[in-house]
């Protein structure tokens, strides 16, 4: 290890010169002994207490999701003490005088009571809602991080699928919770869900009647959703999170390549103390953030919407943000319906409401398997890839993100129309085309952008970095001075594999006979060319050598002019031992 290079005796007293080894201690050892004689955990703990976790800001995104889920559990338990999941009709007389005398369900009344009669109740309700927003948002961003860096590759495909299912469950869980207060907005949301369910071919009407215990709205949907919201779905989420974390521990976390960081090791801080402190401290930060939001930012003020009445609706109704893309699809879908032999099939609801969300999720979940099939790569990958070094993958996700954004905007087409004084119909017509055209454009643009960033990396490797120093030659020509980058940076830039493009018929079987492969192999070759054909590969050792040689020559030519602006010698790439600023500071 490198720690031997520390200056002896110049480390904080808590800091060892090497990673500390466990010491036997009096009382601690006794407790450990007592527990181990009964549980036998020491064998597992001895490895895991000092388990290494690599450090990078982007590894924190999943942690936000995890901790916001814990906040949801804590605040959710608090809310169950007062919430009454009943649709029985009651008359309200309580602290919120504006609704006095109104008829409403017990669910809505108890939500008002939590908000206005339980001290801290409104804060916890809002914390719970904000944490739910944060939970889903963090999962999505975490998923994007994993996708963009190729962390889903073997052996982590199963964890990728688990993550995708968690996002789906999180959204369903959010919708169930959103529906519980039985206010006007959530009731309208349930009504839309009922419309979607009813559009299911053949069984839709039955599904709707079984869900609502009869005709919409019935009086059982709130207690049933309550059961799903506080028991069934959180149970599943908890189990899947446990599996997700166990696999994470088993596989060990991926890491960025760099000096000393290889496929075979994992470099970082030990779990005890640093990682545990950072992760544990971070829990309090997420918790605290939720509390601040719950106290200071209003969310879902159900008392302003009033109790649910199936004959009423508010203008500008919007679902929670994570339902926005389903809402957008529902809004821009053309009015297609088929009538056949006395039956109705509503493409305009069934496709955006049930088919497309599943198709979109399935596409993203299937990507690791598609990519593995195209590359034919059966090896394990523990080093992350920079998004630019997988241009097609990156472009695919960014295109999907643009689709997500467009659908999201389409879900608020009325809000956009009011905000920007636009014609609502025009926005809708535009979106109908845009969802097909813009993702394609974004794909092409992102792919080219990635490739130009790859070129830029090669420039830096071959010709050095741009110093910002402009030089004038004796002839009067101007040029920018380039200096070589450090060996560490250069290694990090080149720490990636060269892409191999699969060519049909290149597979050779055991007897040395080329396998023809057939149609699938042709498709694979085309996909492989499409995915990797345009990528820029890192320079070879010879190219690098030539580049350096060239740079040295130039350096020599420029040597006489080597008086850059003062301060440039402290650019972190030069030895500064004994250097001082010129000009006598």
């Amino acid at each position: 290890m490198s720690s031997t290079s520390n200056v002896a005796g110049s480390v904080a007293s808590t800091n060892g010169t090497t990673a500390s080894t466990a010491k036997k201690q009096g009382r601690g050892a006794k407790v450990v002994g007592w527990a181990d004689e009964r549980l036998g955990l020491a064998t597992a703990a001895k490895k895991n207490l000092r388990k290494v976790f690599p450090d990078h800001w982007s590894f924190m995104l999943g942690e936000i999701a995890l901790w916001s889920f814990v906040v949801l559990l804590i605040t959710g338990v608090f809310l169950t003490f007062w919430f009454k999941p009943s649709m029985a009709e009651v008359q309200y007389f309580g602290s919120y005088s504006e609704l006095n005398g109104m008829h409403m369900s017990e669910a809505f009344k108890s939500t008002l009571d939590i908000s206005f009669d339980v001290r801290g109740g409104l804060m916890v309700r809002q914390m719970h809602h904000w944490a739910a927003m944060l939970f889903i948002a963090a999962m999505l961003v975490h998923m994007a991080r994993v996708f963009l860096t190729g962390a889903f590759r073997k052996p982590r495909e199963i964890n990728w699928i688990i993550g995708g299912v968690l996002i789906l469950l999180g959204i369903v869980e959010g919708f169930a919770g959103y529906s519980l207060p039985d206010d006007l907005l959530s009731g309208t949301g349930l009504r839309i869900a009922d419309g979607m369910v009813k559009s299911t071919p053949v069984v839709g009407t039955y599904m709707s009647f079984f869900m609502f215990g009869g005709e919409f709205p019935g009086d059982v949907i709130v207690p049933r959703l309550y059961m799903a919201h506080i028991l069934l779905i959180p149970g599943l989420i908890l189990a899947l999170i446990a599996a997700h974390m166990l696999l994470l521990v088993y596989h060990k976390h991926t890491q960025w390549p760099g000096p000393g960081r290889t496929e075979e090791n994992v470099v970082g801080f030990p779990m005890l103390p640093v990682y545990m402190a950072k992760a544990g401290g971070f829990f309090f930060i997420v918790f605290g953030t939720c509390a601040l939001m719950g106290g200071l930012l209003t969310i879902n003020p159900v008392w302003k919407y009033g109790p649910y009445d199936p004959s009423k609706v508010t203008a500008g109704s919007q679902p929670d943000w994570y339902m926005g893309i389903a809402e957008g699809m529902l809004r821009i879908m053309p009015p297609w319906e088929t009538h056949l032999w006395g039956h109705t099939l509503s493409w305009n609801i069934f496709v955006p409401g049930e088919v497309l969300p599943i198709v979109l999720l399935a596409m993203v979940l299937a990507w690791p398997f598609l990519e593995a099939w195209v590359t034919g790569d059966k090896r394990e990958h523990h080093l992350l890839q920079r998004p630019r070094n997988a241009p097609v993958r990156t472009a695919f996700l960014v295109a999907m993100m643009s689709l997500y954004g467009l659908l999201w905007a389409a879900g608020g087409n009325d809000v956009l129309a009011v905000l920007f004084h636009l014609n609502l119909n025009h926005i809708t017509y535009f979106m109908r085309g845009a969802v097909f055209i813009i993702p394609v454009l974004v794909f092409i643009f992102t792919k080219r952008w990635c490739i130009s960033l790859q070129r830029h990396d090669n420039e830096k490797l071959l010709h050095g970095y741009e110093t910002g120093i402009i030089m004038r030659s004796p002839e009067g020509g101007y040029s920018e001075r380039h200096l070589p980058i450090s060996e560490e940076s250069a290694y990090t830039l080149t720490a990636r594999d060269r892409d191999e493009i699969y060519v049909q018929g290149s597979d050779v079987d055991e007897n040395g006979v080329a396998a023809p492969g057939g149609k699938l192999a042709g498709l694979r070759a085309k996909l492989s060319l499409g995915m990797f054909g345009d990528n820029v590969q890192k320079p070879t050792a010879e190219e690098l050598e030539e580049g350096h040689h060239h740079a040295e020559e130039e350096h020599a030519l420029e040597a006489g002019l080597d008086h850059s602006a003062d301060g440039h010698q402290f650019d972190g790439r030069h030895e500064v031992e004994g250097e001082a600023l010129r000009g006598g500071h």
Partner: protein
Amino acid sequence: MSENHDAESSNNLPAPIEEPIANPGLAPHKPRPTDIDPRAERRAERQVAAFFIASMVCAVLFCVAYFTLDIKDETDTFIGLGASNVALGATLGLALMFIGIGIIHWARKLMGDVEISEQRHPAASSEEDREATLAALSAGLEESGIGRRPLIRNTMIGALGFVGLPLIVGLRDLGPLPGKKLERTVWKKDTRIVRDVTGTPVRPEQLEVGDLMNAQPEGLVTPHSEEIEKEGHSRGVEYLEGVDLQVEKSKSSVILLRMEPKDQTFSKRSPENWSVNGIVAFSKICTHVGCPISLNEQQSHHLLCPCHQSTFDLADGGRVVFGPAARPLPQLPLKISEDGYLVAQSGFLEPVGPSYWERDSE
């Protein structure tokens, strides 16, 4: 670090990256200011303690706020929220944040910051382990005789399949069968139309041209005046309550609109004798996914659904002019009763609300 690898790659990993630049190995550890400057170290220590003390102060303030501020009196004191809510959120939030910041500050400034390296192991078990597992598996299967006794195997699979039936059948009572329920509303011949707030019946002359009124069949709104309610009872009107009321409201709500008769377009599905002096009644339930429609464009007689912006032309039989809805709004045939009120000629002639599989839309 990663030099001198064995050439063989039994671990199923990509070859170590050593070209075009060899891995220079882990960079040497750089000491932090707190490592070399005892004053910086002590300062960091005090900072961490200060964060923890600040957290304790906030926790105490939370308790003070809990008992001194009462939400009952004020729900809108500060930024649209009650003072209690703001104070509790701020103090609890800061109490938690300060703990987090303190711990992370401690980790960053004072805990050991030497990065250590750990070897990875292939996700797969060793070849021997895998073989031993396979051997145990086949020994177990062999001893069970499942392969040699297809009768047992097949009947067991059958039994496991059949035991799924009770699980599915047991859910049957989740709800009643749909039957024809979705095709019916409470509207029938001579049902009075009443205002949806006051429950009073409507005379045609009470509506001006351009007026839009949210209305219900009599019996869904408990009238504000007891006199009307009594009179209703005397005519045998049943006032619905609870679930029945909610279910009927979600199907039977209608919209009344009065327009110039010259603006109206009549057709087979919207004959002239269904409207009274330019007054038409349409189902309020959107044919898309069932939101109650409410936004009226007065000049064009267009009605817009606020949920997904389907737009219907009430002057033209409820035709869809824009949006995702595929079918026109069902129209309620109107007439004037003998005592001069607006009543239904009959119920709706087609199911209202969103489409469903059994709906015969022709």
